[in-house]
């Protein structure tokens, strides 16, 4: 289906809409579509868009306009690089409410809870309207993203400074009825670098239920962004998540460039590609190391992180910082990839490629890793679509989506590379996708360095006109989506961020239940969750089961090892070579 057919399909619901506008994307093509409707019609239109077109749900944005509330539902149509935004207007400011779309679209469950938290909009018929991103002691009736909101006073829980004996070790143990054994994971747990709270209900070693509470990392970035100037925001959004600190600013500047109709110079596009791909390399290597650590394979952990260091050194040489590069700005980049650096980069990239190939072989050929990871934490293709997961989590389940290919940005359209997919959907498939993606990323970076055109790295940006823009970029973990609205002033009036983990994390409810405790931890880790991006929670009470037969697994894993090593076609390598 191409774009014209999409337009004709959209005309089927014309009667429910009062406005259809098409907006320009950076490339100048009309692949941003904005539909408007009244809140009463939003349920029907959403159902049509998700089920009948069908589109991939990205996220929703709540906006406090002057005279009404708006809920914006963003969809992506990956085959045509289209981003379709449905605006539902809620005219009643006193008791704002709208029909929930979560009953048919589980991916929307969290975002509706979030909008309820921050704007106070009621979602009728929502399956679970508990508090999501705000703290337990946040006062009722204070909605931080309303324009008139004030920061409430910090309330301290007045416990005495003396510390006699240790209290119950986690809040969950005080509140949960211990009729079934409950295993709290977090908020501080060595499993995750960050803080989140999982509550696993276990039956022996088998997990029967999982509940999540993730407000610990919520910093209110969307609100802070409204108080910063357009050019300051990239520095803020690069601190949403340290390890996606190229992708978030990239998505943001693309959204702003869309509003102001700016095309950055070509060299800037190549520099952006180089930074983004170097980030992908070190992020994936980091994941491989942590995954090794999670299954008790510390040797893999140490090796992968050792190989990661040269990438960080390259980034430091280009941008001045190992992480938080702060290299992107509206209209271009701040730091150039110097010509004198290019030969060194190519040498280092060759080394990284070789090491990664060896690591890939070593990991993929290890029978114990096969036995440990195959068939574990399976996310089926159907579930992947229902939960609208992105990135390696989707590609590991056979859903071939990649923003770099579907809506090309930076210099990706000029370069030769492949989208890696694996059909199985288990932890092992995700590991394979990531390892092979490192090799692709090295390939992309090398091409970009070789082809780097001359010229300036930034254009001058005078002012940002009123308007709205959607920017998205493929972060190491999946699609990062930013929506920016400008009123012609020098600050955004609304800036919505959707990080990839925000849709990837809820898929735990499909992949974890029924697994063993040790499998659950690696399953949680397998989506490479990034809670500083996500900062949310969800509930699960569905019963799916993952049954595995050890011998069959071992057999399968051996067959597949042979197949993969054949597919890879790399020379025979031994662990000692590493």
């Amino acid at each position, binding site marked *: 289906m191409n774009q014209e057919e999409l337009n004709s399909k959209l005309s089927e619901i014309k009667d429910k809409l009062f406005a259809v506008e098409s907006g320009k994307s950076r490339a100048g093509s009309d692949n941003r579509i904005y539909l408007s409707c009244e809140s009463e019609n939003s349920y029907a239109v959403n159902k049509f868009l998700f089920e009948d077109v069908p589109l991939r749900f990205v996220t929703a944005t709540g906006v406090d306009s002057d005279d009404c509330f708006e809920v914006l539902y963003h969809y992506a149509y990956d085959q045509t690089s289209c981003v379709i935004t449905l605006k539902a207007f809620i005219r009643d400011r006193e008791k704002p409410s709208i029909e929930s779309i979560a009953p048919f679209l589980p991916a929307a469950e969290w975002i509706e809870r979030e909008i309820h938290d921050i704007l106070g909009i009621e979602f009728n018929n929502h399956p679970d309207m508990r508090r999501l991103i705000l703290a337990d002691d946040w006062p009722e009736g204070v909605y931080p993203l309303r324009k008139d909101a004030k920061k409430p006073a910090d309330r301290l829980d007045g416990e005495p400074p003396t510390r006699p004996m240790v209290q119950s070790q986690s809040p969950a*143990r005080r509140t949960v009825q211990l009729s079934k054994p409950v295993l709290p994971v977090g908020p501080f747990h060595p499993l995750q670098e960050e803080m989140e709270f999982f509550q696993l209900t276990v039956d022996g070693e088998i997990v029967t239920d999982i509940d999540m509470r993730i407000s610990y990392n919520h910093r209110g970035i969307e609100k802070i962004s409204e108080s910063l100037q357009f050019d300051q925001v990239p520095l803020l959004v690069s601190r949403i998540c340290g390890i996606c600190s190229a992708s978030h600013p990239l998505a943001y500047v693309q959204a702003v460039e869309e509003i102001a109709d700016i095309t950055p110079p070509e060299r800037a596009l190549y520099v952006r590609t180089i930074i983004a791909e170097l980030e992908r390399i070190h992020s994936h290597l980091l994941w491989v190391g942590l995954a090794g650590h999670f*299954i008790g394979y*510390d040797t893999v952990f140490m090796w992968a992180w050792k190989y990661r260091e040269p990438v960080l050194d390259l980034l430091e040489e280009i941008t001045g910082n190992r992480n938080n590069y702060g290299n992107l700005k509206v209209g271009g980049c701040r730091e150039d990839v110097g010509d004198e650096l290019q030969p060194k980069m190519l040498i280092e990239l060759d080394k990284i490629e070789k090491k990664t190939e060896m690591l890939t072989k070593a990991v993929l050929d290890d029978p114990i890793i096969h036995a440990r990871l195959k068939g574990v934490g399976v996310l089926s293709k159907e579930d992947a679509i229902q939960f609208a997961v992105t990135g390696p989590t989707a590609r590991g389940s056979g859903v071939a989506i990649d923003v770099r290919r579907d809506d090309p940005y930076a210099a990706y359209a000029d370069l030769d590379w492949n989208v890696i997919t694996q059909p199985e959907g288990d932890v092992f498939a995700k590991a394979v996708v990531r390892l092979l993606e490192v090799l692709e990323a090295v390939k992309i970076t090398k091409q970009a360095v070789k082809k780097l055109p001359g010229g300036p790295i930034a254009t001058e940006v005078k002012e940002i006109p009123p308007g709205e823009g959607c920017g998205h970029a493929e972060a190491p973990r999946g699609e990062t989506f930013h929506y920016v609205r400008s009123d012609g002033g020098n600050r955004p009036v609304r800036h919505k961020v959707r990080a990839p983990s925000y849709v990837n994390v809820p898929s735990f409810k499909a992949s974890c239940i029924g697994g063993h405790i040790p499998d659950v931890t690696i399953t949680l880790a397998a989506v490479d969750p990034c809670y500083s991006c996500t900062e949310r929670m969800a509930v699960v009470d569905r019963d799916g089961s993952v049954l595995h037969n050890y011998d069959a697994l071992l057999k399968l894993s051996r067959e597949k090892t042979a197949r993969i090593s054949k597919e890879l076609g790399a020379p025979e390598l031994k662990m000692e070579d590493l």
Partner: protein
Amino acid sequence: MGAVFEGKDKEMTQALQNLFWILIFPGFVFTVCLGLVASWIVRKVSSLVQWRVGPPFFQPFYDVVKLMGKEVLIPEEAQQTVFKAAPVVGLAGVLLLSTMLWRITIDPTRLFVGDIIVAIYLMVLPSLALILGSSASASPHAAVGTSREMKLVMGYELSLVLAFIVVIIKSGGQLSLAAIAQQTPVFSISGLLAFLAALLCVQAKLGFVPFDMAEAETELASGALIEYSGALLAVWKVMQAMMLVALPLFLVMVFLGGFTGALWAGIAKYVLVLVLLILIKNTNPRVRIDQAMKFFWFYCGVVLVAAVILAIIGNSYGINWL
């Protein structure tokens, strides 16, 4: 009169000597020091495999001293007495075991210093103590750790006993450790199989990867020991260090002929066993508890039953290499 005093004196000297045996050399102090050195070797070799520099020589010693100086926190819901007593019980078990082993090594002619069955019982004590202590701590993480430790004990204990049965058969029904230590059953098919199986059981007893699921840091936040702190944790650490001496030493005595030859040969055997354990630790990821159980009961079990049969055949027909 004189004779009576002399007798009492002798008793006193004997008691003092025994005390010296147990507390200083070769008992507590000596084994602890040796154990701390052994745990340094484990950490150092692991770091070298991982391309790191690793800890300084005195690091395990610093760790223990530091823990002794820290505050001891006891969870409110814990069963206080058991929580505090468990590490001491475990320590006592290992202490007895190691004293016994050393005495046989140094002075094998003394009449009774225990046989292999006593040793097997003493070896279970630390695991039992760990189960007791962690279940007394009333933490859900510790509970999962405890259940894994229990399953693991049930898994490897059978294999371990079978492996020792092979040795007993090979030595012609001898139960005395001193007598068993005179032989080297590893130079036979059944003995070798039994040795390899026992090595893996010891790997599990020491809580090393791939059988460290009871203490899996990433899954259970240090598992069974999560609630322990300060001096009590130090006792656990000391106990683990002593096990690092006692268990490989036990393997050396039972399978490799002990310290019967030159002293350096005995030490070399001990180091060999230790290095084998470390290498297994560093080249494998953690397995799941059900995989471990299956491994011990099924694979190890079958191999060991075969070894027992081989040993019986070999013994009755006088074929030593079987």
